[in-house]
């Protein structure tokens, strides 16, 4: 079973067109909900039943999040889609927008109906120009067909949807930074609480979900929450899009059931390049702690299995590393990223990410000191849990993961001022 939810139009020619989406039953759910005036609570219940957990990285149950909105409270409410897709290794939302934009649109309208919102924004990262144009075209088609605008299909329900383009800032993927960014400000995360469900975009109740989460909604409602839940495994309902890249033959996006063995995913992705040995895997985007290859080959791709191995499924971005890679160099690059992308608001993150990068970098360049590994442990520990947003943790976790599994490689770098890989 593959490509049955978010990528269900992928085998069609020009799958992004309205007529193609409709040929697979697209917008039927919206029509049904609007004509039957399905009670919004029933929709939220179905989403809860599906076991869908947020696909943006944190894995928070989507139905539960929606139930936090008091839908009858007066005033505007918003649905916001997070298509900022910046977590290194992740490239699935781009494919949803490029190949099946209408399903995302339908999902957002249904989300709006469920929480009582009449406006939505899709925040697309600024570099994604081609996906943005696809999305804009799909919006036009949907508007023309009467799926967007006022009084949708005569139901009395209004919904307007626009895209917002980012301009290059990883931190805007953090939900409250993203809201600040739509408000025309620097993307600096807000203190939580209050959560967006109470104080979100323009101070109004807002739900914010990942592209994949929202694009899953039409199928969940069409086939039922139970159907979706049954595709996956316990605590990990449904299928999921995995972006797999690295030293493999056939990198790409695979929509497969949760709980699929990693070895199967690797096989789908063409196996290791040049017949090399698998050394390690970053299983859920660059902030997910690394897992040694041998251990990974025994794991399944679901929240519990990956968490049980001390890492996280995150956004489902799988980076496969072969035995030619130096882990110090890999961590050096990742630490540089988090240091560059820290918004600078809180001291532990601003200063801590700088420390992590400088210390890892000096080890990488042969300037490491004996006390450096303890120093890294210490700095990482001092960031974790002490910051406004999770970028601090995202910077600390890969360091902790690398030191847990590949400490000897770092020690070798310090002792010999060169790399263990290829040192013979």
């Amino acid at each position, binding site marked *: 079973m593959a490509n049955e939810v978010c990528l269900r139009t992928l085998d069609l020619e020009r799958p992004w067109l309205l007529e193609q989406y409709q040929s697979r039953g697209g917008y039927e759910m919206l029509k049904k909900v609007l004509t039957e005036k399905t009670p919004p609570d029933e929709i939220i219940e179905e989403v809860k039943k599906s076991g869908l957990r947020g696909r943006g990285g944190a894995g928070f149950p989507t139905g539960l999040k929606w139930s936090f909105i008091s839908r009858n409270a007066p005033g505007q409410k918003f649905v916001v889609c997070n298509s900022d897709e910046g977590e*290194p290794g992740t490239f699935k939302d781009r494919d949803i927008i490029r190949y099946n934009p209408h399903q995302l649109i339908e999902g957002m309208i249904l989300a709006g109906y469920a929480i009582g919102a009449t406006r939505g924004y899709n925040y697309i990262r600024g*570099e994604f120009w081609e996906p943005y144009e696809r999305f804009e075209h799909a919006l036009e088609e949907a508007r023309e067909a009467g799926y967007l605008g006022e009084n949708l299909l005569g139901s009395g329900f209004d919904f307007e949807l626009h895209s917002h383009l980012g301009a290059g800032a990883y931190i805007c993927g953090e939900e409250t930074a993203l809201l600040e960014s739509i408000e025309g400000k620097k993307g600096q995360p807000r203190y939580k609480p209050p959560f967006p469900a109470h104080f979100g975009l323009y101070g109004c109740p807002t739900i914010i979900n990942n592209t994949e989460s929202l694009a899953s909604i039409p199928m969940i409602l069409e086939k039922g929450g139970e159907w979706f839940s049954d595709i996956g495994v316990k605590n990990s309902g449904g299928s999921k899009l995995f972006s797999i*890249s690295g030293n493999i033959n056939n*990198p790409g996006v695979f929509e497969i059931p949760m709980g699929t063995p990693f070895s199967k995913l690797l096989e789908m992705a063409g196996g290791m390049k040049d017949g090399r040995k698998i050394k390690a895997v970053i299983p859920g985007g660059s902030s997910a702690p690394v897992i040694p290859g041998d251990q990974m080959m025994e794991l399944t791709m679901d929240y519990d299995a990956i968490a049980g191995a001390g890492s996280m499924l995150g956004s489902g971005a799988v*980076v496969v590393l072969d035995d030619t890679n130096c882990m110090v160099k890999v961590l050096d690059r990742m630490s540089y990223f988090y240091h560059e992308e820290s918004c600078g608001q809180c001291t532990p993150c601003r200063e801590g990410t700088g420390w992590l990068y400088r210390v890892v970098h000096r080890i990488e360049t042969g300037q490491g000191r004996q006390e450096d590994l303890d120093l890294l442990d210490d700095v990482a520990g001092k960031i974790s849990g002490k910051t406004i947003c999770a970028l601090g943790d995202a910077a600390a976790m890969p360091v902790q993961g690398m030191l847990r599994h590949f400490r000897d490689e770092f020690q070798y770098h310090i002792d010999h001022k060169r790399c263990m890989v290829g040192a013979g």
Partner: protein
Amino acid sequence: MSTSVVKDVIELFNPEVRAEIDRWIAKYPPEWKQSAVMAALRIVQDDNGGWLTTDLMNDVAAYLEMPAIAVYEVATFYSMYELKPVGKHKVCVCTNVSCMINNADTIVEHLEKRLGITFGEVTEDGRFSLKEVECLGACGGAPMMQIGKQYYENLTPEIVDAILEGLE
């Protein structure tokens, strides 16, 4: 007084740029014109050969009725805004992990040699500039780069040559 302010704002930018910014303003609640600042900066940057001057940022501030400092904050926070001139073709190369382990270094070295510049520089003829960027969400096509609005994936030095030769 008020009419002259309105007139000034109407005279800002050329009609195409103004129409494009207005299209974005219309997406947001009327009291939140400021939400269009990111789009406005991008539009005027594109119209100005790829970079923003202080005058342009001030114009955006006036047009959107924002304090100029709030516009500068946005322009300096996001990496896609350029505050000094760039090449006609801004070549952005991803060097993050998936690209790195798929030989992004080779691509960078090749570009540096061919163009005779390093990251952050512009060729003398003003045609190209080079920029290092973080993961662009296309790791399946590593190594990759972006030039203008276009992504180029699965690069080799030969493919890079062909791409550069194909540009005006």
